[in-house]
């Protein structure tokens, strides 16, 4: 691989990398600068660096526009949904991957195929079910819907990984007389930590940003963050400055979570590479 760098020329590689970085992170940087400028400043020049850093806008977005409510709701819903998903998803994935029984593949296929179903149509029936069980416009109802929505993907990711764990470990555990539950807890889970981390990150990101279900199933008091941005999008004056601030509040926590988790993930991966 080191030869590869020599062949391409360090300069060329770096140029490509720098270009792609500008491409990937450029828009993010642009929004960040706009979040600290007022809309009138922005309409004069869309690309200037902030002359005056309006940090107070973050305070405004947070308190005046009900953002604290949205953030809190998003936090509760996403954390509970992801926790539940990880637990029941890994249980199901472990079962599909390690046990041979009639109907294993059929059941797995049934769960997996749900990924494909367009959400727009299940939304009506879901709405009616939630109303029926008194879960409409509750954070619990939204969390449960999120669990159902992400379950197929979670099971898919985890099952693939669980299946690759060498069977000898399980055989050894069984010989030692461990009950099935302990095998799951002490053998499968620890080894599958990288896959679980992937699933947790993916679910957190997808659910934090989820829009369609949230808008149909919630009312103002239970709104989540993606909907909160809409408050700034009145049709009068597109309040570009405040929208940008709102966007930053939505983006930054997720970036931080990723930055924290990704280290663990990569550590897990590189540790596992050396068998």
């Amino acid at each position, binding site marked *: 691989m080191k030869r590869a760098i020599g062949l391409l020329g360090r300069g060329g*590689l770096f140029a490509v990398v720098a270009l792609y970085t500008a491409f*990937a992170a450029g828009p993010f940087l642009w929004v960040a600068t706009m979040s600290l400028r007022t809309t009138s400043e922005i309409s004069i020049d869309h690309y200037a660096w902030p002359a005056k850093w309006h940090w107070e806008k973050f305070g405004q977005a947070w308190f005046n526009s009900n953002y604290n409510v949205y953030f809190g709701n998003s936090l509760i819903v996403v954390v509970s949904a992801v926790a539940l998903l990880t637990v029941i998803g890994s249980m199901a994935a472990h079962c599909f991957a390690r046990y*041979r029984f009639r109907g294993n593949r059929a059941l797995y296929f049934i769960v997996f195929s749900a990924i494909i179903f*367009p959400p727009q149509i299940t939304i009506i029936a*879901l709405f009616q079910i939630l109303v029926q069980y008194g879960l409409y416009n509750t954070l619990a109802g939204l969390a449960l819907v999120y669990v159902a929505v992400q*379950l197929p993907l979670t099971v898919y990711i985890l099952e693939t990984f669980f299946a690759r764990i060498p069977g000898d470990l399980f055989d050894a555990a069984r010989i030692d007389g461990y009950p099935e539950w302990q095998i799951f807890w002490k053998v499968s889970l620890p080894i599958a930590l990288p896959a679980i981390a992937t699933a947790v990150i993916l679910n957190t990101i997808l659910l934090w940003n989820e829009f369609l279900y949230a808008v149909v199933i919630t009312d103002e008091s239970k709104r989540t963050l993606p909907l909160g941005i809409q408050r700034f999008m009145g049709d009068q004056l597109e309040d570009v400055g405040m*929208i940008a601030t709102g966007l930053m509040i939505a983006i930054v926590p997720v970036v931080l979570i*990723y930055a924290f988790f990704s280290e663990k993930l990569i550590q897990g991966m590189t540790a596992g590479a050396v068998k």
Partner: protein
Amino acid sequence: MASLVAPTPPRAASTALRVDRPPWGAIVAFLLPAFTVYVAFTAYPVLRTLWNSVRTVLPRNAEFVGLANYAALARDDLFWRAVQNTFVWACVSPLAEVTIGLLLALALYARIPGRRFFRIAWFTPVLMSYIVVGIIWVWIYNYDWGAANALLRAVGLGAYVQAWIGDPRVALPSLIFVTTWMWTGFNMVVLLAAMHSLPSEVLEAAELDNCGWAAKLWHVVIPLIRPTILNLVVLSFIGKMKIFDLVWITTKGGPLWSTETVSTYLYKRAFEWSTFDLGYPSTIAVVWFVIVLAGVLGLTWLFRTRERLEY
């Protein structure tokens, strides 16, 4: 299905249980919570949708109409236009995203300096919701002051400025560009992780054999991470077949249906056309499900592993 997706040593050899009968108690215990949620919030709505599709479903009554909805769907050229757009998107995107992601992952794997920073920087687009991405790119594609046209004008290519999402000829490619921007970083991270999990002996062996880097890439690395590549292609394919939020925020399926996807068309039929009928949108959902399933099965068949890998 998993055996098409991950090149595991055949299950029989390594995962057979010592006991003759599977431990049903444990199986039920493990599967019950997941299936309860699944049945209540996924299976039932799906069955309800099937039921809806052979009826005209209005708020006060539902009238059985047999296959009339399906017949109407076959004649619905707006639907088939949406299918075409969505298929194009779902085929082009994985190609772009996975290829670029692979090249980027290699760059990081080659241990260039500052790779931790790059990894995070390249991943930020993935972290943004479609609302955020949609708003930002509508700004970027703005004809007057957007970054796209500003850049073109700045380098003297002002003749090529377009109404990127206002012109039916370039609207769909513009949106495909946006999703590529979003998801390439994700593919890069996963492929990088896959590369790191490869046993180092194989790569060292290849190095000793004096392979050029291109040959090493094609004959050694790619076959080893093939299952991961397949997973990513399938995920990307499915994701684009379902895409809704981005189109809704940017073009709403316009201009002239050039970005109409099956999801947006379905939403419009269910919520925006002057009718409460849920039967026809349900028919769209059922037919679409079959098409997507066929696509996924086709993809996995295409990528089926030809030989068992041993390492």
